[in-house]
């Protein structure tokens, strides 16, 4: 099994200087590979089946989000944030909207917060469903994946009812949502809350105490908490090592402090811990959604955005009939609204960890500088040092359990 190495190992080509007799083989776990979930490359130096060293190359899907963001007004950047972590786009959207609302000093009504919480927790479930399903596929168990993809279809139907799109949702607006959740959406959410738990239980029954799965994943890629913190890990993989850092609890946003939920924390930080932890987080997300649906019943109906006409587009009927609404519409679209010339950093708990938005604003139509603190990028840098001494198949499972999403890695 692998011995985790805690020394500082540079992520640079080492294979040319420690192999004078040419004993080691170079294996290109290339950008196009069925087992790497996204386009990133690892050039591995192998001693038989064991990895001696590796170099990661990324950037194969670098789409220059930060540069584009300097040329787009605030309301158009939401579509960019969709495409970062595309397995859980609504979390990115909500995180961006909350950053701008923090900048503008907008106070959100409770109902909007609870609706946002429902959407974010549903997308957290989709992210974990993909990660655990693919982890099953990588260990050879294809069945679980097919059942979980069907559940993702149900969540897609809920998103479609709310915003019209399945995957890259562009959900919500700065100041709330573009339309209220209709009764069909609430019915679909309730149906999901009923139908999903048995499927998740069945999935857990297939994997959690499965002898083969435990033998494959237990002890692989074990990480101690100090090293994980040193490498700035966050999210489920950090919590699997034993550090209970969750942005939802440390710096509650969108009224998360009103909810009663637990943060599962692992002990060894290996692949098995991460798998179990993501399952547990899905159960906690279901709990949060149930509580949110209960709380929504007590809130006054019909509020789906904050009352900020300077930043929230007025409805079209009013724009065509009402002079004020027309002026606000014009000012918002043309970017003539006064925004504070300052900088803000806001973090949300994404599917993979702390997703941060650092926004430097100079009062113009577009941000002066927008930087995304992407958890996949920062989590992935430990991959090559971590895979030294591992068997190749263990390294593959390790990579799937890190849940690196290529869009978020390269931005």
């Amino acid at each position, binding site marked *: 099994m692998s011995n985790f190495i805690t020394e500082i190992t540079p992520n640079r080509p080492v294979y040319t200087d420690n192999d004078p007799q040419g004993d080691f083989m170079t294996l290109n776990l290339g950008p196009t590979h069925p087992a790497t979930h996204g386009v990133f490359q690892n050039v591995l130096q192998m001693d038989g089946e064991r990895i001696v060293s590796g170099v990661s190359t990324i950037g194969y899907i670098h789409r220059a989000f930060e*540069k584009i963001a300097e040329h787009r007004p605030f309301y158009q950047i939401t579509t960019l944030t969709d495409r970062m972590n595309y397995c859980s786009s609504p979390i990115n959207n909500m995180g961006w909207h909350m950053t701008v609302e923090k900048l503008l000093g907008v106070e959100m009504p409770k109902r909007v917060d609870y609706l946002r919480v429902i959407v974010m927790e549903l997308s957290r479930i989709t992210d974990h469903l993909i990660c655990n399903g693919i982890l099953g596929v990588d260990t050879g168990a294809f069945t679980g994946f097919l059942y979980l993809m069907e559940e993702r279809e149900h969540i897609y139907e809920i998103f479609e009812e709310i915003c019209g799109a399945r995957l890259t949702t562009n959900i919500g607006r700065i100041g709330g949502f573009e339309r209220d959740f209709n009764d069909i959406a609430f019915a679909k959410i309730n149906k999901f809350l009923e139908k999903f738990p048995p499927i998740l239980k069945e999935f857990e029954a297939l994997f959690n105490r499965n002898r083969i799965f435990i033998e494959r994943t237990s002890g692989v890629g074990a990480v101690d908490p100090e090293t994980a913190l040193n490498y700035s890990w966050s999210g489920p993989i950090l919590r699997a090592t034993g550090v209970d850092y969750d942005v939802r609890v440390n710096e509650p946003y969108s009224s998360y402090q009103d909810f009663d939920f637990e943060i599962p924390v692992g002990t060894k930080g290996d692949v098995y811990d991460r798998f179990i932890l993501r399952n547990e987080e899905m159960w906690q997300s279901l709990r949060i959604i149930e509580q949110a649906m209960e709380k929504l019943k007590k809130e006054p109906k019909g509020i789906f955005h904050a009352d900020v006409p300077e930043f929230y587009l007025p409805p079209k009927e009013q724009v065509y009939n009402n002079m004020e609404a027309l002026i606000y519409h014009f000012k918002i679209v043309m970017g003539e609204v006064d925004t504070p010339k300052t900088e803000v950093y806001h973090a949300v708990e994404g599917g993979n960890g702390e997703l941060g938005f650092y926004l430097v604003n100079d009062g113009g139509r577009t941000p002066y500088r927008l930087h995304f603190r992407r958890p996949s990028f920062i989590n992935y840098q430990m991959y090559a040092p971590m895979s030294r001494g591992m068997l190749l198949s263990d390294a593959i499972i390790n990579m799937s359990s890190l849940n690196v999403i290529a869009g978020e890695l390269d931005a």
Partner: protein
Amino acid sequence: MGKISNQHIIDQLTVNFPEQFSAPTEPFGLLTLETTAVTINALLTYLKNDKELSFNYLTDITAVHYPEQENALGVVYHLHSLTNNVRIRVKVFIPVSNPTIPTATELWNGANWMERETFDFYGIQFIGHPDLRRILNVDDMTVFPMRKEFALEDPNRVDKKDFFFGR
């Protein structure tokens, strides 16, 4: 919110680094300081290792480009103290003609790729970095794309007629 206040951090820093950082501001409650490339290493080491402040989590390293300023490139460090639940932002402004700053990889291994990304986009040389090469862009790129003078669009594209785009 947090167990120690921003004022307390400023007081501790004033004691240990007198005159070496500029007037701190608190946009949205996040303490922000500016310092110089000479002091940054000592300041980060102090912030990380001090038993009370213990900013042991490096959230992010990034940079901003202000072409009108004399020291145009600003390197921005975001640190987080998990035990005290407080964040801090440290900025260092360096000139474009000599964009050098000591690396933070000895303090945090996580700074490795963050600094490579900042180098890739802005051309900031981190002295002492074990492997400073481009990470996201193609390796043979000679310019630094996030600087303000670099255009967003593909320069070799011939089919976008300016007429249709109102230019």
